[in-house]
């Protein structure tokens, strides 16, 4: 029984121009499909990562799961007791007018959990005295710890982490990632980890889902994805990561940019940039079969 199951979940946003403008200029409504029929499962104790570039829909999926948005279609089934979320921006995640102890106490009070504020703070490497201070007295990394403390105070089984370290310096990121890994082992947590940074993901994830244009294009165990990526977009993404090892391998930056989300390409969304696209790719959206959503792979062409 998976802890979380998404079945054909989509989410549309109405980005039409104001009514008056539409009437005068005779424009139709504009609907942006941010998430398009996404399905996957997460099992207890694992870390599933969703990667992709900006606008691919990964953050929207996170918010759908946690309940901040309602799905336009599809079902989300959660078998656990509680879930919590950690956000990207350490400066906007904490109410600047509240003391830290009140911020961490909010879920305890409201959800009636059995944690105490000093326990929650110690768990993330802060001192109980820090509860008296305000968020602006802390650095970015420390604020992220406070966010984690707040999330854990709600005694969740499942934690949705939306780019939790993207706004942090590299050395602070290491501290937070190590902390999150320790907490996962100690408390038996399940994570959904959203990120655009493939290197970070390779260090934290058990399974990885690659998203492009609101769809999952590849979903595989991390080891497999990073050693033998199959979808052309995954390959391009891995290729584009700057090579710190300086192995000197020649890189071919992929041409083109992400198309306008209001005017998606027909068929497979990646076809304008894909070197293997054929007629079928331009006509038919590939289904996620055998971990990959790509006609060329299914047909054995690559």
């Amino acid at each position, binding site marked *: 029984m998976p802890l979380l199951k998404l079945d054909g979940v989509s989410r549309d946003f109405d980005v039409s121009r104001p009514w008056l403008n539409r009437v005068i200029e005779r424009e139709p409504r504009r609907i942006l499909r941010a998430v398009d029929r996404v399905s996957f499962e997460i099992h207890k104790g694992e870390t599933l990562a969703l990667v992709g570039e900006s606008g691919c829909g990964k953050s929207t999926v996170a918010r759908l799961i946690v309940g901040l948005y309602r799905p336009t279609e599809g079902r989300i089934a959660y078998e656990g007791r509680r879930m919590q979320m950690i956000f990207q921006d350490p400066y906007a995640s904490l109410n600047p007018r509240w003391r830290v102890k009140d911020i961490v106490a909010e879920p305890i009070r409201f959800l009636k959990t059995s944690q105490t504020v000093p326990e929650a703070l110690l768990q993330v490497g802060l001192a109980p005295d820090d509860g008296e201070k305000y968020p602006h007295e802390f650095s970015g990394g420390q604020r992220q710890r406070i966010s984690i403390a707040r999330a854990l105070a709600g005694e969740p089984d499942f934690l949705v982490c939306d780019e939790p370290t993207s706004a942090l*310096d*590299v050395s602070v990121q290491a501290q937070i990632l190590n902390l999150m890994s320790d907490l996962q082992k100690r408390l038996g947590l399940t994570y959904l980890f959203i990120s655009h940074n493939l290197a970070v993901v390779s260090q934290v994830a058990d399974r990885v889902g690659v998203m492009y244009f609101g769809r999952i294009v590849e979903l595989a165990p991390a080891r497999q994805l990073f050693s033998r990526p199959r979808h052309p977009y995954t390959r391009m993404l891995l290729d584009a990561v700057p090579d*710190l090892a300086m192995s000197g391998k020649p890189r071919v930056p992929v041409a083109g940019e992400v198309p306008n989300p209001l005017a998606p390409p027909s068929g497979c969304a990646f076809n304008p940039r894909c070197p293997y696209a054929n007629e079928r790719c331009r006509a038919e959206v590939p289904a996620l079969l055998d971990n990959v959503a790509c006609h060329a792979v299914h047909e054995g062409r690559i």
Partner: protein
Amino acid sequence: MTLEVRDLTVQFPTRRGVLTAVDAISFSIAPGEVLGVVGESGAGKSITGLAVIRLLEPPGRVASGEIRLEGRRIDNLPHDEMRKIRGRKIGVIFQDPLTSLNPLYTIGRQLEETILTHLPGVDARARALGLLKEVGIPAPEARYNAYPHQFSGGMRQRVVIALALAAEPKLIIADEPTTALDVSIQAQIIALLQRVARDHGASVMLITHDMGVIAETAQRVAVMYAGRIVEIGAVHDVIHAPKHPYTIGLMGSIPRISTERQRLVQIEGSMPRLNAIPRGCPFNPRCPRRFERCLAERPDLLPAATSLAACWLHAPA
């Protein structure tokens, strides 16, 4: 040397005392060379870039030191002289392409304006079109009269690079040029920067927190911490054989793509605030290898194999 900086100190007088954001740093960039300046937030790398082009926000000011461009001192020039140098000899690329371009003017107009300001009499339009083609804007004639908001982020950054190149500068200062871009676009821009530096013989000061970008683009790199340069050397040496404990910790904490999960090295604590910089070596509270001298004396850049590291571990015996 295209750029020579010697003992540059930048300070911010505040109500509670003087804050030193950059403390007596020295470095140089040769013609056609890309020097990476890497560091975490608060290290002073952006401030260094701003100090070189004299765009520091008051009350920040250059308190001491010398900056020489092609041998000529520019840190003490009057404002109108400096304005001529900026743009003509030095081109700048900032992080956010959205705010670097004026949304009210077409990109063609902005390019022409910059070209004519510094190279009057030249065929501005032809040169602008040439630049757009060079930075990889497809069908430049068609897009010449487009406005910045009609371009995507990556394309806008290319236009910003074209603007920086407009007057054939000798030095380009790029402050986090790829941070706001997606990974796939980032790769394209990095390649473009490299090519442009090579083709135009311009020196580039590449400021970023992303070591990966530096590995791909730069020949030498300076690592900054708490307003000082703690290590400087060839990129390959600094990345694969770092000499300063901070650089060692930094390299260890950078996640790399691998199929094996490893625990990342973490440096305890965080960079000191400007009003609380420790005595002696600023890294000493966090350094696993500190000893008494580190707490008392601030180390200068000392030779360490082929690099320079500001660390007493490398003091001559």
